[in-house]
């Protein structure tokens, strides 16, 4: 009985974790390359959610199509944001750019409210379910998971195998060194910022495939926090570390419930979430630079 | 009693043995030079002495006390001062504040007020010739200026043992001479009893050190009076190579 529950929860947790992972990779990338803590991260996820919703409800397009659309919209937003604001702040103290992302986050929320209103919306994409002996999984969740794996692999490939990906890594290490190697550092800043935002907006699509309800202008804040924690868990500047950390976070968030439910007189779900956050703290005790973090 | 004694110190990084079973004694009032090929373990040795790393084996004895595992911040007040091969200024603080920080937490810690420290700082800044840059932020200095500042900062600690790690690399020959001169002067006048100097610039080593230890692959190769050490055939082989003929001992 309890094992059945555990198995079911872990399965769902794994699927969710994949999405969490992708929802964090953009944050790590942007932090790694231009040292910007994007506190408006969740708001970009919100943009992705609305993109999916609009494509689905107004145009009848499947969320699968929304994935590339969101990437393009996200990258466009990223470039826009970079060239209008962030570029001027690269040489400023680190936290100045944090302030800018905070303001942009607010702006996105309020614009979304202006355009779409404050209602909680959702959509219904029925693509069937798989029935396992211990749980039932809607196909949409599975697609979201497959999508996140694909994006993570794609990013991994880009990062480690392509020329521009290598350039990004070198800029992360030493931008001046990259410059003398002939890397167009300013472009790499812009590009990785745009890709970071693009992936984030795209992860908004995956999230709504997973949870196609509760879409509203203020939904992003909660994801910002989770993404922060997952990013650090994964080693901060490593986007694929972020992906694995996302998996772990999802597993803990879903899995630990079953065990806490055995303790009488407590609220097991809240304890589960509590553990998911404290896990980071304990991990950092053992390894102060996160899972895949480098010294 | 020796001021500092290293007993069979070994420091490893993974499989690499950076310092290998090395022993060394430094007497009060000495000026010692440490040379050796790149990567032979000189900086690592300094790191072990100043407590940045703890050695895997062996002991570090300072003034008769075992300080092998003492945290580095406790060593400074005992009189261990150092400079860094790659300068590590407190970037946003002014040169004056940097140097004053040295005075504040060195051997004088607790005995002097903040204002006293600023006065002490002025003295050493003048000595190294940075008075023009006194109120500049340290990060805007050139590498050499940073090194000068580090010397001043370390001197302001009023150390008994000053460790200088390639403080004169990149310095103009004229400034090298100047620096060697004031180091000698300070050593006599201020009671900073000894200076250990890691240096590749023979002009500085020859000008300053009374005794030279040569390290090779983490091991002690030669430890002898300067002239003798530098003319040792083994040293010529591993350290000077065929460049020896070009008058390294002169500059």
């Amino acid at each position: 009985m309890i094992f059945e529950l555990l198995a079911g929860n872990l399965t769902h947790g794994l699927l969710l974790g994949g999405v969490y992972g992708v929802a964090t990779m953009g944050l790590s990338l942007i932090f790694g390359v231009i040292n910007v803590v994007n506190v408006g991260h969740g708001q970009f996820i919100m943009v992705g959610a609305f993109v999916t919703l609009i494509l689905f409800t107004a145009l009848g397009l499947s969320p699968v199509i929304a994935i590339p659309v969101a990437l393009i919209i996200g990258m466009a937003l990223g470039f826009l944001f970079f060239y209008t604001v962030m570029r001027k702040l690269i040489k400023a103290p680190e936290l100045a750019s944090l302030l800018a992302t905070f303001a942009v986050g607010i702006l996105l929320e309020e614009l979304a409210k202006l355009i779409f209103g404050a209602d909680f919306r959702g959509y219904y994409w029925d693509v069937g379910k798989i029935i396992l002996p211990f749980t039932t999984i809607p196909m949409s969740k599975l697609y979201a998971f497959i999508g996140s794996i694909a994006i993570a692999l794609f990013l991994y490939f880009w990062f480690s195998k392509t020329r521009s990906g290598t350039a990004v890594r070198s800029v992360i290490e030493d931008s001046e060194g990259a410059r003398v190697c002939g890397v167009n550092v300013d472009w790499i800043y812009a590009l990785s910022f745009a890709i970071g935002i693009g992936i984030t907006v795209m992860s908004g699509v995956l999230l709504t495939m997973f949870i196609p309800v509760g879409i509203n202008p203020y939904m992003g804040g909660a994801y910002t926090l989770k993404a922060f924690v997952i990013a650090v868990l994964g080693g901060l500047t490593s986007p694929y570390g972020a992906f694995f950390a996302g998996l772990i976070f999802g597993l803990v968030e879903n899995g630990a419930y079953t065990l806490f439910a055995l303790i009488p007189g407590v609220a097991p779900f809240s304890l589960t979430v509590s553990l998911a956050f404290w896990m980071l703290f304990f991990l950092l005790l053992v390894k102060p630079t996160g899972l895949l973090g480098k010294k | 009693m020796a001021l500092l004694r290293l007993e069979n110190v070994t420091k490893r990084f993974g499989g690499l043995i950076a310092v290998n079973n090395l022993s060394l004694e430094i007497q009060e009032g000495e000026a010692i030079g440490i040379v050796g090929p790149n990567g032979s373990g000189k900086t690592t040795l300094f790191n072990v002495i100043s407590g940045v790393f703890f050695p895997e084996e062996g002991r570090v004895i300072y003034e008769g006390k075992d300080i092998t595992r003492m945290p580095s911040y406790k060593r400074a007040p005992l009189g261990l001062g150092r400079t860094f091969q790659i300068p590590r200024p407190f970037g946003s603080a002014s040169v004056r504040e940097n140097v004053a920080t040295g005075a504040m937490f060195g051997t004088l810690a607790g005995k002097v007020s903040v204002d006293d420290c600023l006065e002490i700082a002025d003295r050493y800044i003048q000595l190294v010739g940075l008075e023009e840059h006194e109120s500049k932020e340290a990060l805007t200095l050139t590498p050499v200026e940073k090194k000068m500042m580090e010397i001043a900062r370390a001197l302001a600690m009023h150390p008994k043992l000053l460790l200088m790690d390639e403080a004169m690399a990149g310095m103009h020959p004229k400034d090298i001479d100047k620096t060697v001169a004031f180091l000698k002067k300070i050593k006599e006048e201020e009671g900073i009893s000894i200076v250990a100097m890691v240096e590749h610039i023979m002009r500085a080593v020859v000008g300053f050190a009374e005794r030279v230890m040569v390290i090779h692959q983490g091991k002690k190769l030669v430890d002898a009076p300067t002239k003798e050490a530098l003319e040792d055939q083994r040293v010529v082989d591993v350290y000077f190579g065929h460049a020896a003929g070009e008058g390294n001992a002169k500059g």
Partner: protein
Amino acid sequence: MKKNIVKYYPLIPVLAVYLIMFLIGFFMPGMWQMVALLAFYCALGQSWNIFMGMTGYVDFGYVTFIALGTYGMSLGITYFSQFEWLGMGIIVIGLILAMFLAALAALLEAAIALRLRGAYFAIACIGINEGLRYFIEGAKIWGGSEGLIFFGALTQSLGRETVNQLTTFWADFSVFVIAALAAFLNMHYMRSKIGYALTAVREDEDAAKVMGVNTTKYKTLAFLTSGLLGAAVGAMAWGLKLGHVYPGDVFVIHYTIECIVVVLLGGAGTLLGPVVGGLIYGLSKYWLAIIMPGFQLLIFAPIIIIIIVAFPEGVIGVLKQRVKRTALEKYIV
């Protein structure tokens, strides 16, 4: 002696602003809660800045202290109001509890989290904050998610009139006092050995150690100071003033971000910065909410962006450069 007083000159503009704010609030009708709001932002900014400005460590979980302060006051009043002879003493007990909880948290966090560097530290603190919030809810301690509502208890033990005065005047007044105290401590630290030590920590922690700086000691000192001040603000501005506490309302990272915004608008590491930042932030939010309710944030966000692009080091950060080598230099830090 004179020299020593000169050192504290930069406190003059800070305290002057606080005094003016107080006078406006006290004498102009309807302004008290507004200046109280401004004082709240200034006090938080100033308190947060002590740690961040001096050590360079960004504590994203700072709101934990504010929240624990609120809980300290709430617990004190909830559990001690039954002893009638304590009278006003329950407020003192509340404050002591607030300090105690915050100190406990600060020391624990310092022992563990302060070993981390940079963003790892910043975000580990978020983890602690969120973890604590859900733990209170999950383990159902301190009223769990149902929080503590103690306005009634307060009224019962102190009487209606007194409570009116306490919640709508003295609670806010004490925020002013905390803000001034924070400014003073900040100044004092800056001008003493502590300031030098913390600058060294901020710039190069390893080098600082080799220079003889006991980095852990000084970091913990600044962390504790900053945390205790935050807890005091929480105890007063959220606890005593509002008469209730819910975990979901106080362990909210958004407030840390507000601290950061306030400090950065004014200038990190400066003394006058958090005051100016608090004024800019509080005033623009307040007035916009009045002039165009519902649309104020649409205007507010671009204002922030413009300010930060124009003054990347904060208003005072930039001003400080400007007044270098002028008569004003010794007042603006």
